[in-house]
């Protein structure tokens, strides 16, 4: 699905990613853990194609295509989804309208007919119920005056509506209370299947209690320093980043 090879990226003069290599196969869930400033979020932005970041070296192969050659919306339409740590507030744009535009953009890209208002409403209702989202929230402006938990739920709602091949969750657990964490995780688990993959970025092992990863990677100073299975996350929780990230 995704093959990152020796990826180096910088912002301005500052090198942030210093040779990341990571391979994610169909149906797998990978967790990426690391201390603040280690390059976790940068990796997610580079993969989604934010133009502030410059790729200096390395290759990224996504479903057999060169990801780095595509622009942001092509990456998204090809099946890459980034759930943001801080979703943007968009005043004046209704949440449900935004979702419908996004779905229809993807369908158009895949040469499918656009969803009409009724079909869309049915799908939205179903998915919103799964995530315990109040339908009134969908009538409000996108992310405007949403609580931290509502914003994250809304991101996962987008995820389940768009049904991407690879979803990157950038610290989706930050700012969530325990109940919201459970609901959001259940949403992710429902979206999981044999055909899609996840890259879950987090500081804490707690999220991984709900979303069980197949692999855990530790990133420090722009490089992946250790990889293993779920037990690595437990070990990390026990010993802390300072000790584990040195290796």
């Amino acid at each position, binding site marked *: 699905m995704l093959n990152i090879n020796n990826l180096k990226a910088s912002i301005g003069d500052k090198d942030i990613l210093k040779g990341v290599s990571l391979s994610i196969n169909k149906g797998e869930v990978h967790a990426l853990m690391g201390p603040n400033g280690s390059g976790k979020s940068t990796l997610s932005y580079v993969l989604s*194609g934010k133009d502030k970041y410059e790729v200096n070296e390395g290759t990224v192969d996504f479903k057999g295509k060169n990801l780095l050659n595509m622009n*942001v919306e092509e990456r*998204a339409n090809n099946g890459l989804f980034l759930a*943001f740590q801080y979703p*943007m507030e968009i005043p*004046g*744009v209704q949440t449900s309208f935004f979702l419908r535009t*996004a779905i229809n*953009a993807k369908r158009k890209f895949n040469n499918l007919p656009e969803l009409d208002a009724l079909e869309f409403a049915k799908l939205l209702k179903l998915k919103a119920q799964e995530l315990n989202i109040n339908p009134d929230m969908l009538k409000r402006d996108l992310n405007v005056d949403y609580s931290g938990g509502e914003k994250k739920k809304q991101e996962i709602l987008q995820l389940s509506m*768009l049904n991407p091949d690879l979803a990157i969750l950038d610290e989706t657990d930050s700012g969530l209370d325990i109940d919201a964490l459970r609901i959001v995780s259940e949403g992710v688990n429902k979206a999981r299947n044999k055909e899609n993959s996840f890259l879950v970025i987090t500081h804490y092992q707690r999220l991984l209690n709900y979303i069980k990863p197949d692999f855990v990677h530790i990133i420090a100073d722009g490089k992946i320093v250790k990889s293993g299975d779920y037990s690595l996350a437990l070990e990390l929780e026990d010993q802390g980043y300072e000790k584990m990230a040195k290796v």
Partner: protein
Amino acid sequence: MNVDKFIENIKNKEINTYFQKNLLAVNPFKSHKIENYKYSQLNKIDFNKSHNYIHELNLNTKDNFLDDFQKSKVREGISSDHISWNFNGPDSAIRLSGLIEDPFNHIFNLDNINNDICIIDLSLYEEINFVFNYTKNKKISIVIIDSNYNIHKSPKCFKFNVYEKSNIEILQMSYNKNTSLIFYEFNQFNSSVVNLTVLQANNIHLRNEYYFNLGSDCICRISGANFSNLGINDNYSFIQHSKPNSSSREIFKSIVDHGAITNFQGKIYVNKIAQKTDGYQMSRSLLLDDISKSNNKPELEIYADDVKCSHGSTVSNINEDQLYYFNSRGISSELAAKILKKAFIQEVLDSIENISLKELSDKMINEFL
């Protein structure tokens, strides 16, 4: 010419407002030397030549959005004070047809209209100096349509006398290659409500001026959107709080591109006795390219000592991070920009109270954005 005639006409009338005494007494084509109006350049423009621009334009010029509305709701009406205007039930609209003998000095009694909506098409009249009187508490919506290559050689003037406790909504739609000069004067008597919405799109030159004179306990709301225009677009508003306890709220939004220049100047003037005035004014511009220009000049002039007045002004481009958010969901930059521009003027659309007019305005915005 007509301007002199107009001024003469105004002077002869009894009502003394700040507008008549101080502002209209000078030539409405103000010189840019007058400090109060520093951005104006309209005196340099030969309006007769404006139609030359029309052939150079390559913008959308459809107004199909109006068709459905016209067909389903609108009936022609005759503007006579002796006939009670009631066509097709209260939900329908009435359109004044061109049977006005002396459009330069015509007084309409809006009380005679039983319809919720009254439409006035400016392209029907060469010269206009309409006075509207309204005394009823029931809300009436006036739609002023200013379109279709309508080149105003002289200002079209409207005066609204909104009597005590009456409630009026005005929607001005200026679109399609206009050169438009419009003056409004609103005299709001005690406890009256005026809700004015202005939509300006796809015009060549505009100069619209809005003068308000508020009595006590009045509510005055002005919402304006100016987008997809060429040339110079001037909007000037002057809200005078003459008596206590009135509130005014003005928002004006412009989206400027194609090398257009948008000027907005708005003043809230509070008389010495107008205590407890609540005034708010906000002008925002979305400047989309380097060749366009946006001038915003908010002003407050306050002589009372117990008032709440605030104003603000912003100029910015489309937010890159918002655009990225759309892109990351597979939405192209082009479509995202269109949605964000619509979102920018959504607040103006929301201010329209009549639902069928809101739908109509929504269609107009989608057509020209």
